[in-house]
């Protein structure tokens, strides 16, 4: 569990390393308190992203950007419509579109809504749930991938757990 207290005990170099691993840009010359705030904010956002959706929140079939002004401010003119693909049109309502993919590490496995995220980001998001270490390499659909690989619909992500050392 990352807390403000635990972060304050770390050195600035350690905090900057955490930022790199978490994909937080622009922290290489920031003060310690600024870095800590950025990490805590990212952790909070990640927790919100990973929280399971309740039944009262129906899965949107088509999401249209409504607040164009705010988007323009951050994306400088980029706008668009984001669609969810019906890849199982014959399934029952609510199960026709999938955005969950299988993520595993060792014997632990589950499905998570991480399509569109990088492997490195998923490693950070799921580090506690799947007991991941920073050094674990990633395999998607049976092939080694770099940490900046962006996950796609239908991918199967595995973080390779080190082989058991003992037996004798």
């Amino acid at each position: 569990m990352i807390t403000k207290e635990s972060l304050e005990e770390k050195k600035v170099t350690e905090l900057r390393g955490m930022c790199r691993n978490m994909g937080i840009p622009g922290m290489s010359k920031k003060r310690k308190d600024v870095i800590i705030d950025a990490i805590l904010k990212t952790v909070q956002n990640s927790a919100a992203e990973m929280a399971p959706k309740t039944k009262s929140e129906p899965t949107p079939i088509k999401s249209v950007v409504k607040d164009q002004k705010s988007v323009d401010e951050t994306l400088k003119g980029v706008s668009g419509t984001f669609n969810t693909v019906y890849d199982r049109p014959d399934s029952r309502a609510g199960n026709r579109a999938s955005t969950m993919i299988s993520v595993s590490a060792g014997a632990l496995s589950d499905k998570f809504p991480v399509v569109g995220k990088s492997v490195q980001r998923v490693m950070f998001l799921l580090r506690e749930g799947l007991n991941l270490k920073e050094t674990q390499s990633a395999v998607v659909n049976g092939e080694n991938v770099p940490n900046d690989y962006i996950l796609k619909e239908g991918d199967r992500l595995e973080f390779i757990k080190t082989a058991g050392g003992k037996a004798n």
Partner: protein
Amino acid sequence: MTENLNIRIIGIGGVGTHLSEYLSRYFNYVKDLNVEMTLIDGDEFERKNHERQTFTTYSNKGQTKCRELSVEFPNINHTFCRDYVTNDNIAGLIKSGDIVFVAVDNHKSRKIISDYCATLDDIILISGGNEYHDGNVQLYVRKEGIDRLPRITDYHPEIEKPADKLPTELSCEEASVSEPQLLFANIGVAVLMTWTLYYVLNTEKLEYSEVYFDMMSISVLPKKRNLKNR
């Protein structure tokens, strides 16, 4: 028509003792099959091993287990080797066509065995290991000089570039230090190795090259990984 099966079990300790018993009991009652089982270990059974290993006398592990199994399972030709596997002796211990089980305590031995097996035409290599309450079993198959599954070093840099030592390289002090292990984890590896053997002998399409288990989540999960381009 009678077939021949040559099984080599390297490491007759917490995993190897149980594995050798399970395999002996199974193959002792299979008809039309000549089984030779070689038990390879340079270590002696000690009093401190009692809680995880089954031996009747304090002596070389391979030799002792060979004597015990020969009495109980006479249809199998049990033999033993009192050495650790090294680069110098491996060619005399493993031949093309063998089924090799690796139940050792170090990745350097796994690397030596994996590299050698990759030079043979036909081999089935099943390697297992555990930590305190989890572990894994890897399967490597090579037929007619072609890899059918990834090598056990391919997705595991800790085996490809091992940081540990061979038993023959350890000082007496180093050899006397051992981390605690759980009997159930050893048995878990041994059982999964038998499952893996059954899988490789009975499946037409090889897909799984590794299986993990974790006692704290009561879970077992097989893995599919692609062959590396060589």
